């Protein structure tokens, strides 16, 4: 099985976001960048497919120069090959999707796995866009799946439950937390991964389909009435919810 896993590098979840000097993106100085948390499931799923069906796993990232670090993580976890495409456009999912599709077309994967979202621009768009560009079916937010022969049966999370979806290979899926239990790379593998080759490819120049005018930090407009825990306070809270906030 020819498996392509697409991963991204994002600011650590504990990052306190500040607006950069361009006024449109975040200030990157001092920010720790990590492997997108959902992509731990992505890489793990690729490795499990190889263990089950044989074949090879290629990890791909589209991003700025520092994004190569996450390919080292993927190599340490056990992927066979790493491909880096330089394109730092985060605002436009389409531009990332075009670059992924371009690499995919050259390797004809049976399965493309991605994370359900990158926790920077949170677009949830990549599985569908890549699927459309490759003319493949896609299933997003998959928490469980099974491949038998050419048939794929997957469960994806929806509001208040799960959808059971049936399709055929080749296909694209996006991984939800719980799909698997990602392995930790072992120290010797981390050391070995440092000297493994990373193939660099030039990105496809596609003009961005969106433009950002400005980035701002959310302003809290909360009333902030802080009460104690006496009976009177709790009654007051109930009154405020009824009469002031009018939410119950």
């Amino acid at each position, binding site marked *: 099985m020819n498996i392509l896993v697409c991963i991204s590098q994002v600011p650590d979840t504990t990052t306190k976001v500040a607006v950069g000097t361009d006024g449109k993106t975040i200030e990157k100085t001092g920010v720790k960048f990590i492997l997108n948390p959902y992509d731990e499931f992505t890489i793990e799923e690729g490795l499990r497919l190889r263990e089950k069906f044989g074949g090879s796993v290629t990890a791909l990232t589209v991003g700025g120069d520092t994004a190569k670090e996450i390919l080292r993580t993927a190599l340490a976890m056990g992927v066979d090959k790493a491909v880096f495409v330089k394109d730092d456009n985060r605002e436009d999912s389409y531009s990332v999707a075009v670059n992924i599709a371009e690499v995919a077309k050259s390797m004809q994967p049976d399965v493309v796995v991605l994370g359900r979202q990158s926790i920077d621009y949170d677009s949830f768009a990549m599985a*569908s866009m890549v699927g459309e560009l490759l003319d493949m079916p896609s299933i997003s937010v998959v928490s469980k799946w099974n491949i038998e022969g050419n048939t794929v049966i997957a469960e994806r999370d929806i509001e208040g439950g*799960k959808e059971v979806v049936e*399709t055929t290979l080749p296909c694209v899926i996006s991984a939800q937390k719980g799909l698997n239990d990602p392995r930790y790379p072992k120290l010797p593998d981390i050391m070995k991964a440092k000297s493994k080759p990373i193939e660099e490819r030039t990105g496809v120049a596609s003009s961005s389909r969106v433009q950002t005018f400005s980035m701002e930090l*959310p302003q809290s407009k909360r009333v*902030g009435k802080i009460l104690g825990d006496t009976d009177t306070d709790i009654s007051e809270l109930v009154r405020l919810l009824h009469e002031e906030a009018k*939410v119950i």
Partner: protein
Amino acid sequence: MSTIVVYLEQKGNELKRSSLEAITAALGVTGSTVIGLLVGGDAPSVQLAGEYGLKECAVANHDLLQAYSSTAVSATIAEFAKSVGATSVFFGATAAGKEISPRVSVKLNAGFVPDCVALEANSGSIVASRPVYAGKAKINMAVTTTVGVYSLRPNVFTARKVDNPTAVSVREFTPTLSAHDCRMKVTNVLRNEGKLDVSEADIIVSGGRGMKGAENFHLVESLGKVLGAAVGASRAVVDAGWRPHGEQVGQTGKTVSPNLYIACGISGAVQHLAGMSSSKVIVAINKDKDAPIFKVADYGIVGDVFDVLPKLTAKLTH
């Protein structure tokens, strides 16, 4: 003159509220013709949209739309949008909307703006605001293409009924579909019976590490029951195995924007705040008066959840 197609999504035989919200948002883009599109659905439900100001609607039907297929629905929407010369297509950013809107944008060579929380019509073009970095920041953006595809975060835009509504003029639309468009289909839906989901609830009562163990969550559930609320949880609680992942609110869980969010024993790590800060009203109950959750709360009770929750539940029962 711009034309906005609003994709209407149904739950059972009724239009989802997120679709009604999208209608109101589309009508707010001045100088636009708004057309609803229901795919393989129940035509009578469309009349409800009339109360929210929709005048025109198409219902797409085809033998290949019998079973839900996101690829077939995407193809149908794109074909319809082209047929009416749509300049924008609006979706609710629901589980289905999030999956089909990116496909539709690729099919229409359209710029894609997901998860919008505000739209401003500026001389014919739309400037959208959307949260990024899980709500830690917001960007204002626009498409650079002729056509734009937007998904709207549920429960952020208000669905407004109009004065003097008229009957919706409904017509049929038959898309050109082939088996190739239906290579994936939904074969079953597994509902969490009797349990309200955080992504659909008007009120959420969430518990954090301060609940001290799975066995104490009955306090959160009791309060939730009185309020008709869904139960949510912080990441710490889910990682500890006290609650299922489906209840997790936050950066690596679900992003929610209910009318009322009650955080019980949740300190308010930045990842949690990211997932719930667009809630309309936030109540925090925590014994640490310096907990960050109080900085985003409208109302706070500084006190022990084990003491406060039963009292609050009792007072709300009366």
